[in-house]
């Protein structure tokens, strides 16, 4: 019989529930988050046009670099200023 020591962090990641999806989005402010990968802006620019044509308020944000998680302050700002956020992965 061998006893070994657990090499892992011995934690179970918390399972987070997704926010409830709104049935109606009329009048909401929509954030567009660019992760700073090439061409993400192409996609988001077009999306912004389409949303504004339909009368949505749109706010733009970008991560300083796609290689690191979004700074906590940025995440907080988006949550305060927007009802919805669309994040553009790209390449």
């Amino acid at each position: 019989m061998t006893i070994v020591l657990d090499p892992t962090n011995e934690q179970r990641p918390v399972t987070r529930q997704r926010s409830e999806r709104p049935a109606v989005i009329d009048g909401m402010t929509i954030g567009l988050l660019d992760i700073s990968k090439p061409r993400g802006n192409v996609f988001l620019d077009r999306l912004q046009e389409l949303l504004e044509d339909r009368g949505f308020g749109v706010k733009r944000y970008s991560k300083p670099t796609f290689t690191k998680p979004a700074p906590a302050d940025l995440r907080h700002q988006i949550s305060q200023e927007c009802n919805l956020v669309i994040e553009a992965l790209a390449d």
Partner: protein
Amino acid sequence: MESSAAELTDGVVAVVKRDCPTCELVAPVLSELQRRGVALTVYTQDDPTFPEGVTRLIHDADLAVSYHHQIETVPTLLRIEAGQETARTEGWSRPAWEQLTGLSDLGAGLADYRPGCGSMSVDPAIVDQLRVRFEGGVLQARRLELASLEDEMEALFEREWTDGLPVVPPTEARVLRMLEGTHRAADEIVAVVPPQLVACTVEKVAINAVMAGCKPEYLPIVLAAVEAACTDTFNIHGLLCTTYFSGPLLIVNGPLASRVGMTSGHNVLGQGNRANSTIGRALQLVIRNVGGGRPGRHGIDRSAFGAPSKLGWAMSENEADLPTGWVPMSVEAGHPEGTDTVSLFAGHGPSAIVDQLSRRAEDLIDAFVRRVSANIDPFFARRLDNMLLVIGPEHGRVFSQDGWDKARVRGELNERVFAQLAKSTPAPRWDGPAIVYAGGDAGLFSALIEGWVSGPTGSQMICHPIQTSAHNEGANR
């Protein structure tokens, strides 16, 4: 009487075993001490009745007293005053015993001197078991009992603790032995490890170092590598999650590297040297097991291709043979010469720089320009600091004979690469590649190690000091 690890009784304490001819020899002397009024306590390691005629005779059956008082030889004689040891002598030496007890003419008829035998508490067959018994309490990790029918190597694969190669089972005894390699406490936090951002203790690093195949003397290097990797500067999070090829390469500078047996010579970037192979692997196992950074469909290591070097990649710089005027990478990074450091570079490769004909620095540099230019990719904003050059001894000699040091090689290289690219846009940025001196002494080659996104948006090379101590320096001698 049974022993405990508690304080020893004031007076003279002897530790003996019957299975030691010197202890048999001094048995009458112990009786003599008692007869002549010495407050004597004798601990016996094996036979509870040995030696006969001693009033305070205690069986150190679990070797707790011997272990906790670091008895290495029997007989050992200790003087205890107010609970503290104030004198110690090992084996039989009439002058030493007389000095310790304050009595004269001890052991009439015996030779003046006779060496003792090994204490049972340092018997290699049981010392690991004793360490687990008496020090296992410092280990906080969950214990996992493998079933007797389980193959222990297979059991570790099944729990997804390995990088695809077998690992050494991290038993308590092995982990405690690994921890002997550092003066740092087992529960000290080393770093917060991405991607799950978990506080990682020295103990968890030691467990993964055992699994990787490290020796205890490598542990300070692994600890420093974990610290360096988990900085915002090096950004192991991004390096792990990228779809690109790279992984961490460790370059060790300072006297520790050769003392623990790392190579900077033949096959320095390849297989075959235990320290080089396992130190880098230990870092990757920490990222995998503690940070939760695993490759594959359900993992967060999203590399499209990966690279064989991601199993673990470490090397050292050949400081002993640096050409005249060349300085170690650690000194270029601002550390005093002789500092033990580990530098981390996010890379993969290597690719070969070949020139077996040039005998002048002016000519040889062209081979470097060709390879570096071929590796400048506009996607990485034409940076040169996302490359690492490993210059071999035969190329190094050609440069140094013409008076070119590392800085000159870098400067001449940048100037020539710039001249080639000046017409194109965007303009290149001019942080030059890092240079390390290593490789076998035969072969007119050098190596270029390609890197990942550099600068503040990606991973910046970092040179981090290694914490060593008198304790582990002694262990490595």
